[in-house]
C-alpha cells in the first residue's frame, strides 16, 4: 500500500471508531477501553522489543509508577487529570532513564532479569510502604477526569478520551519507528555488532527506546487509574508484564499493525474465555508456544500480510473490471 492511501484509510477508520460507542453496550465499550490502554503499553514495548531487540519484562512496574503518581496526586493534592497525566509520564520516563543508564553494561537475558527485578521491587514497595501508597488497601476514590467541567464518568465517554490518547501514542510510535532513530534501532535489533561498526551509538538508542516506552507506560497508568478509580499493587504483577511481552511477540516485532491485531484479539479472547475459567491460561500459553515455535514472525504479522495481499488483489480486480468496461463501451 502507498503511504497516501494508508493515511486516508487510517483517517477513515479513526473517524468510524469515533461512532463505535453508539452501537454497543457498556460492557463491550469497557473491554475496548481496556484494550486501548493495553495498546498504549504494547506500542511502547514494541519500540524496545521489536525495534531495539531487547527483552523487557518490567513494564508493569513502570505502569504502576504512572498509576500511583497520578492517583496519589489526584487524591491527596486534588491535582486535575490533565496535569497529573503529564507529571506521571515525566516521572515514569525519569525512572526509565535510571534503569536505562544503570543497565548500560547488560543486555539480552541480563536486561530481562534486571527489568523483572525492577518490576517486582516496585510492586513489593507499593505493598509494603504503607504510609505513602496505602499498601494492600489500595488507593480508592480516584476522581474521574473532567473535560471543561463535564465529568468523564462512563465507559462510553471514557472511550473517546482513550481513543484520543491511543491515536496520539500510535502516531508518536509510527513517527519514531520510521525516523532515523527507529531505523537505527532496527539495525541494532537485527545485528548489534554490525550496527555498531557503521557508527550507530547503541547505548543512546537503547536508552531512548526504554525512556519512550516508560513514558508511554506512565500515560497508560494514569489513564487506567482514573478509569478504574481503584488501584491495588496486585494489578501490576509480573504476570501482566509477561502478558504485554506476549502481546508484542504474538503480534509482530516488525509491524505496528500486528501488535494492534494481537492486542485486540487476545484481550477479547481472554475476556470471552472467562467461561472456561482456569483453562484460560493454558490457551494463552498455547498461543505463545504456537507462535514462537511455528510462526516466529508473529501471528499478527501473518494476518497483516494476508490482509495486504487481499487488498492488492481487490484493487487489481477492480482495475481489470474498469478496463474491460472501457473496452466494451
Amino acid at each position: 500500500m502507498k503511504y497516501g492511501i494508508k493515511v486516508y484509510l487510517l483517517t477513515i477508520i479513526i473517524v468510524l471508531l469515533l461512532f463505535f460507542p453508539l452501537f454497543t453496550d457498556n460492557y463491550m465499550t469497557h473491554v475496548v477501553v481496556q484494550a486501548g490502554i493495553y495498546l498504549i503499553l504494547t506500542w511502547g514495548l514494541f519500540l524496545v522489543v521489536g525495534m531495539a531487540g531487547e527483552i523487557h519484562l518490567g513494564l508493569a512496574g513502570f505502569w504502576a509508577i504512572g498509576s500511583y503518581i497520578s492517583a496519589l496526586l489526584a487524591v491527596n493534592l486534588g491535582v486535575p487529570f490533565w496535569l497529573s497525566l503529564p507529571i506521571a509520564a515525566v516521572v515514569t520516563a525519569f525512572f526509565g532513564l535510571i534503569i536505562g543508564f544503570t543497565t548500560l553494561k547488560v543486555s539480552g537475558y541480563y536486561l530481562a532479569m534486571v527489568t523483572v527485578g525492577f518490576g517486582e521491587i516496585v510492586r513489593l514497595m507499593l505493598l509494603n510502604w504503607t504510609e505513602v501508597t496505602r499498601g494492600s488497601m489500595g488507593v480508592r476514590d480516584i476522581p474521574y477526569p473532567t473535560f471543561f467541567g463535564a465529568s468523564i464518568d462512563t465507559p462510553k465517554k471514557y472511550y473517546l478520551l482513550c481513543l484520543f490518547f491511543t491515536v496520539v501514542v500510535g502516531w508518536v510510535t509510527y513517527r519514531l519507528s520510521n525516523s532515523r532513530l527507529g531505523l537505527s534501532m532496527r539495525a541494532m535489533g537485527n545485528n548489534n555488532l554490525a550496527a555498531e561498526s557503521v557508527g550507530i551509538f547503541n547505548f543512546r538508542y537503547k536508552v531512548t527506546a526504554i525512556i519512550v516506552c516508560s513514558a508511554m507506560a506512565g500515560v497508560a497508568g494514569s489513564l487506567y487509574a482514573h478509569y478504574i478509580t481503584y488501584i491495588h499493587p496486585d494489578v501490576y504483577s509480573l504476570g501482566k508484564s509477561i502478558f504485554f511481552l506476549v502481546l508484542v511477540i504474538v503480534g509482530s516485532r516488525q509491524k505496528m499493525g500486528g501488535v494492534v491485531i494481537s492486542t485486540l484479539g487476545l484481550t477479547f479472547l481472554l475476556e470471552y474465555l472467562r467461561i472456561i475459567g482456569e483453562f484460560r491460561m493454558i490457551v494463552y500459553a498455547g498461543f505463545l508456544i504456537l507462535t514462537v515455535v511455528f510462526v516466529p514472525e508473529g501471528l499478527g504479522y501473518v494476518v497483516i500480510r494476508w490482509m495486504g495481499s487481499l487488498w492488492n488483489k481487490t484493487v487489481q480486480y477492480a482495475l481489470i473490471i474498469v478496463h474491460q468496461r472501457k473496452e466494451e463501451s
Partner: protein
Amino acid sequence: MKLVFQYILIGIAIGSVYGLIAFGFTMIYQALQHFNFAQGHLVMFGGFIGLTAVSATSGFISGVLQVFLVFLLTGAVFALICVGPHFLVHRPILTRSEKKDEGMALLLGTLGVGFILEDLAIIIWSSEPQFFPRIMGKGLIDIAGIGLPVVYVWIFIASIGLVVVINYFMKFTKLGFAMRAFSQDKDTAALMGVNLMQTLYAIFALTYVVGGIAGVLLAPSFYVFFGTGFIWGIKGFTAAIFGGLGSIPGAFIGGIMLGVLESMGAGLISAAYRDVIALVLLIVILIFKPTGIMGKKIIQKV
C-alpha cells in the same frame, strides 16, 4: 548473637536448595548458552508433586525411607513431565535452521511451559496455599548451643547428597560423559556417536528432576503455593549469576551466599522485604560484576 548464628544456619540450609535451582540454570546455560525460564515453576510444581507423593506413600511406609521414596517418585514424575516440553518446545526451537532468534524463542517457549505448569497446579490441586506434612522430622536439634529445627539439617544433607550424586553421574557414567561432550562441542560430539537429541532430552530431564526435588526440599519451610514459581526462578537465577555462570560449584556457593544474606536480611530488617533482598542483589551484581564471583570473563567473537 545466638539469633544471628541461627539465621546463618537456616540461610545455609535454604541457600543450598537455591544452589540446586541455580544448578538447573547453569546446566542449561553451559549446554545451550540460553536459559530455561520455567525453572522456578518446576520448583513450585515439585512441591505439589511431593505433596501427592507423601499422601500416596504415608499409608505403608514412614521415616527416612518415606522421604527417600518421595524424592524418587518426584524425580521419576519430573523425568516424565519433561517429555512434553521436549517435543513441543525445546526440540523444535533448537533444531530450527534459522539461529537468530533462538534465544528469545526458547525464553518465551519455556515461559509458556511455566504458565501451563502454574495452571495445571491450580486445576489439579487448588489455588489455596497448602501445608506440607512434616515427614522430615520435627523438633529442634542442638548445634553448639543453638537450637535449629531438625528439618533444616535434613534439607542441607539432602541437597549436598544430590549434588554428590549428580557429580558422580556427570563424571563417571556414559550419559554424563555425553552430556559434557554436548556442552563442549555439539558437532564433534555428534561425530563421535553421541545422539544429540537424546542427550538434549537427558540434560533437560536432569534439570527438571533437580528442580522438582528442590521443590520438595523447599516445601516444609514455605507453603506450597501455585504463585511462587517466579520468585524461585529469580532466586535461582540470582544464585547462578552470583556464582558465575558456567561453574556448578559456583552456583552452589552462590546459592548458599544468597540464602544467608536473605535469611539475615529477613530476620534483622523486616520479613516483608525478604524477596526484595534477592532482587536488589541481582540488580547490583548484574550492574557491577556480571561475571559473578567465580566466573571467567566471556570473550565474544565477532
